[in-house]
């Protein structure tokens, strides 16, 4: 197995996910099998090959004027926020 339980815990922390001790064993095993699988790419010679980040290389960055326009209705949008107050979304205290 290429990936350890400790590595999974670290990646989980970066991903803002957590696993209990019971499920982490199975998760690590399946995760490792996928990583081992994609390792096959190492055998491809990519010396001098440029990466493709976008399927149509002709597309350039699209800019627009910074104009004030009508946006979504605040009240409608806030209906989806789990907690809100005075038009703001609410979260626990961040700074003491």
């Amino acid at each position, binding site marked *: 197995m290429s990936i350890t339980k400790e590595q999974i815990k670290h990646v989980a922390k970066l991903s803002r996910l957590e696993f209990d001790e019971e499920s982490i064993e199975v998760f690590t095993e399946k995760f490792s099998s996928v990583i081992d699988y994609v390792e096959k*790419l190492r055998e491809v010679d990519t010396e001098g090959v440029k990466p493709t980040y976008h399927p149509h290389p002709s597309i350039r960055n699209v800019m627009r004027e910074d104009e004030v326009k009508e946006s979504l209705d605040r009240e409608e949008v806030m209906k989806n926020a789990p907690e809100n107050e005075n038009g703001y979304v609410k979260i626990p205290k961040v700074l003491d």
Partner: protein
Amino acid sequence: MGLFKLTIHELRDKLNTREITSEELVNEFFNRIEATDEYIKSFLLLDKENAIKEAKNIDERRVNGEKLGDLAGIPVAIKDNISTEGLKTTCGSKILSNYTAPYDATVIKNLKEAGAIIVGKTNLDEFAMGSSTENSAFHTTRNPWDLERVPGGSSGGSAAAVAAYQAPFSLGSETGGSVRQPAAFCGVVGLKPTYGLISRYGLVAFASSLDQIGPFTRDVEDCAIVMNTLASHDKLDSTSVEIEKVDYTKNLKKDIKGLKIGVPKEYMGEGISEDVRENIKNVIETFKTLGAEVEEMSLPYSEYGLETYYILAPSEASSNLARFDGVRYGNRAENYNSVEELFTKTRSEGFGEEVKRRIMMGTYCLSSGYYDAYYKKAQKVRTLIKEDFDKAFDEYDVIISPTTPSTAFKIGEKSDNPLDMYASDVLTVAVNIAGIPAISIPCGTSKGLPVGLQIIGKSFDESKILNVAYNIEQKLNFNETPEIGGVK
């Protein structure tokens, strides 16, 4: 009356001659849904009241002599990762089970302007991650041809809805085959358009450099009709391409004498089941009778398609799904003592196993020290896969292959092993990686299950693909239908 079995172009003609009204049509489809969805479970949400209202509105406009388009008054089902104003848009996930979209995706806006009637939202693998619809947080959709089998995925609900005659057409989305694979499993037509042809605005993002919306229809002509409405440049999607408007029905029926077709040997070899291969061999012979030249060729880097995909797609997903944190929308965990805990508990409770696995995969591949070995490496192989296709299209007009290595598999057969599940996309992912278009059409059955033919074209050559698909569809005359709950 059996109206539900008709195609869009047949229904359009009946609406235009006032033989039927849209209200009758919508009622007919809701009756059909009521009779069949307890078996199939295509839908997550139905919107009958509003659908009837919109249908009456279209009927009134028609009576008033207004000239209406091909889709006016025609029902449509929408995959539940496409935003629909005022309707729940759950992405098949617990984390969004209470989310109502405050705006319409551009494709929805286009459909509404064309007068199409939204009947409901369809089931999918959570956040479109999966190949069987078993990863939905709500329920598993069943294949109309065999209720013990999967409809494919991730757009399984949309494919099953068209196959079960619950809607004449539907929308799905693709990242690695999520329209074509379920189209093949359910015996319907499914198109993955060129990246950038259809706006992604309002499609909940999975892997932004691969995602593309695509339609399911009963036949190829309908696919062309729907594409006329879906394809549009959109200022709200910076990757949407500005090209001249094409009428996809215009060249549909031209003959294909002299057409050069390539058959990649990698797509017909090991791992492809014998019955699927036999079906495709039969299609190749049929193409020859239509005057096409068919040749075996090679796409050598396709062998690395799945590995490339399973680095690129999770990497992009891990970034896109960071927005689901329980702050602005979606469900929030109940017990937490800090913001950090709020994020972690919300996400751990809200996401299913496969989504977690892909977020973790992506985070791992993008993390410091691994980026070059995984993500950058995969982007380089992506270049090689794309160059394979570029070279091929210098020589061939289209490339054909099976859509899937086998017919629909059984529910539960692959759900325990992610690699087995991923393998069902082996013939479709390279197309997404290269950004090019491809269609799947039914070309026969094996042991009562449909087999899909894939036709791949070069970028923005949808007209050609549709023309080729139309010709072979007419010649093959596939007309088998599934039996649901004892009803044909």
